[in-house]
């Protein structure tokens, strides 16, 4: 055991002297978590807004209201003009200019409220959206935000558009008649003053006013859209919580495969042979590598989670014990991954090549970069064959759902038994003596 400890200390000294390894193990993952954390979750600073050309050619008050909301949107920065060079002056976008700016790739999307945003001939809102699909995520973000803005006006808009529809069908005068008879009836039935009931107003002002006081409007009560978040309720920063586990496990695989592969370096350096000509057994060298890699992995994961806690408020203490269990079993699985590659590869270069390729593939498949649910069904089946999947899922369970041990037990079992089997095989390979 003493020899093993001495060998671990040797690995620590070597790691300490290897700036590249330290940067790859701690600095690079932290920078990536910082970048992606800001994209998906918003850390210290707010996320950058997406520039979208916005043209409002409509005189409609509703259009103006939505425009005002766009101006104060968190996600979108409406760009309404550009500065021309000669003569130096603001040029406001119109629909044509907006289209050509998107076509030229200057902006990725343009939102246009045309003059007939609301028209007497149509009962629907007329909005035009021009986009360049080269960045689908961005486009869906923009679409989503615009839809949300418009939808927030819906309770008031709905009766208005409904009234326009009726006007169109039976004529304006007849519709007014219908309206007053209906309010009269309701007033009589509920015993209220019919004038206080605004049901299907055909004035835009009424729409805007009702939206101020939506709750009192009987029709707006017809659509009750209660969105209730069920899972991850108390998670301070859901976006980062999702990604931190994914990135952490990917870099864990890289650093621990590196640690295992240092057996090759020691072989080419000749130090492995020197040790083996001293009172050191092969098994002691393997154990020291294993324990050292495990410790490095646990420290690396802890540093990443502590970082996520400090910068993004990811709550790592609420479910600390289970988090620790997942950290340890992930590290065990990652070390065994490195060991098995080291035991099968014929040279350091080969081991490097194979491991880089494999880590990238299983990170993509296993959900390090994006949720596995985005993959086609058959790929999701393959996902389950990667240690990344089980590790990322377990981190999510622990940090997101606050899962107890019985929930993560299957994940932990998969990780640990993978580690066990892989270590067993690599041990057999090492005995045959390809590396040693």
């Amino acid at each position, binding site marked *: 055991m003493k020899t093993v400890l001495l060998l671990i200390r040797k690995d620590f000294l070597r790691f300490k002297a290897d700036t590249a390894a330290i940067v790859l193990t701690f600095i690079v993952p932290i920078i990536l978590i910082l970048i992606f954390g800001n994209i998906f979750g918003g850390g210290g600073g707010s996320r950058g807004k997406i520039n979208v050309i916005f043209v409002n050619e409509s005189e409609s008050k509703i259009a103006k209201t939505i425009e005002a909301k766009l101006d104060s949107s968190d996600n979108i920065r409406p760009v309404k003009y550009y500065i021309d060079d000669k003569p130096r002056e603001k040029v406001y976008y119109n629909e044509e200019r907006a289209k050509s700016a998107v076509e030229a790739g200057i902006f990725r999307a343009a939102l246009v409220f045309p003059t007939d945003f609301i028209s007497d001939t149509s009962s629907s809102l007329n909005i035009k959206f021009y986009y360049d699909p080269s960045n689908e995520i961005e486009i869906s973000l923009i679409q989503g935000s615009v839809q949300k803005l418009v939808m927030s006006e819906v309770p008031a808009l709905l009766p208005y558009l409904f009234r326009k529809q009726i006007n169109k069908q039976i004529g304006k005068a007849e519709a007014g008649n219908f309206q007053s008879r209906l309010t009269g009836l309701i007033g009589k039935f509920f015993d209220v003053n019919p004038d206080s009931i605004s049901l299907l107003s055909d004035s835009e002002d009424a729409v805007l006013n009702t939206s101020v006081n939506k709750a009192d409007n009987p029709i707006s009560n017809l659509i009750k859209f209660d969105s209730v978040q069920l899972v991850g309720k108390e998670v301070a920063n859901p976006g980062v919580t999702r990604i931190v586990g994914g990135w952490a496990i990917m870099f864990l695989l890289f650093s621990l495969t590196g640690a295992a592969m240092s057996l090759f370096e020691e072989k080419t*350096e000749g130090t492995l042979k020197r040790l083996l*000509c001293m009172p050191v057994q092969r098994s002691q060298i393997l154990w020291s590598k294993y324990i050292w890699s495990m410790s490095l992995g646990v420290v690396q994961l802890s540093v990443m989670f502590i970082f996520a806690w400090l910068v993004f408020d990811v709550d790592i203490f609420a479910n600390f014990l289970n988090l620790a269990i997942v950290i340890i079993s992930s590290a065990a699985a990652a070390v065994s991954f490195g060991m098995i590659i080291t035991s099968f590869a014929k040279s350091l270069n080969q081991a490097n090549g194979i491991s880089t390729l494999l880590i990238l593939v299983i990170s993509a498949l296993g959900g390090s970069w994006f949720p596995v649910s985005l993959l086609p069904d058959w790929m999701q089946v393959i996902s389950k064959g990667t240690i990344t999947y089980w590790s990322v899922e377990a981190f999510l369970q622990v940090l997101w759902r606050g899962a107890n041990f019985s929930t993560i037990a299957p994940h932990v079992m998969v990780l640990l038994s993978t580690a066990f089997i892989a270590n067993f095989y690599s041990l057999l390979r090492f005995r045959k003596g390809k590396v040693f």
Partner: protein
Amino acid sequence: MLKIHHIVKHFGRIAALKDINLEVARGEFFGLLGPNGAGKSTLMNIIVGYLKPDAGSVSVDDRMMVYESMEMRSNIGYVPQEIALYQELSAIDNLKIFGSIFELSGKKLQTKIDEVLELVQLSDRKKDTVKTFSGGMKRRLNLAASIMHNPPLILCDEPTVGVDPQSRNAIFDMLKHLNESGKTVVYTTHYMEEAERLCSRMAIIDNGTIITKGTLSQLLENLDQQKSVKLLKNISDEQLTQVKQIGNIIEHEFHFELIPDETHSKLSEIFSKIESININPEEIALTRASLEDVFLHMTGRSMRD
């Protein structure tokens, strides 16, 4: 001290060692001489228990060396042919790591480190990382790392490869010093001059076989001819034919070597013959037979071929 008994080792179809028998007495400086690929390193690896022989046995102090057994390891200081050091770490860290494996620690370890660094003359560079060292310095540290545990038997596998003359002399002095302080040294090399200069006894190995062994004078004794004459190459073809009547001519890169026949045993006779052929005496040099000649004699090849 060291007994090597009928060692055989194959690597696939290559027979690296064919029935090697050797004995090295305590306190000897024993040379193992042979060209590239002769099997020197393989034999060393078997002696330290790193490689398993196909047949035969090794014993140190009459105790059997068992492959991979830890028991004998602390009796042997093995200096590998390759530089086997942690290049990213300092000289001191390297020595600490290798010293601690031999259960040295604390003050004892520190003293030992200072002592070996002094011995290999690297004290002033002890805090520098190994990769900043010159080839010769690395070699010296490579040696230092192997003797931290004060082993009675030191195996040096070509410790002077790629080393400048200064470092080479430092290594020689060090090994001599160690030998004089009672350590048994086994030294492999393909430099004949090194063996001649250092070793009290030696064996010549070629193609996995020991072709001859003994003290330097014993080895030279076996040669038919102990003297040869060196001639510069500026002699004419006619002169050359005449010289050939005195003995055999071996053509070297910059000179001819004349090995006189047995009938011409007297030096004075040889000189007067050469003079009579009209070769300027200043271009004649007498060389004594060397291990090179022994090798040539035994194998019909030059060592460097």
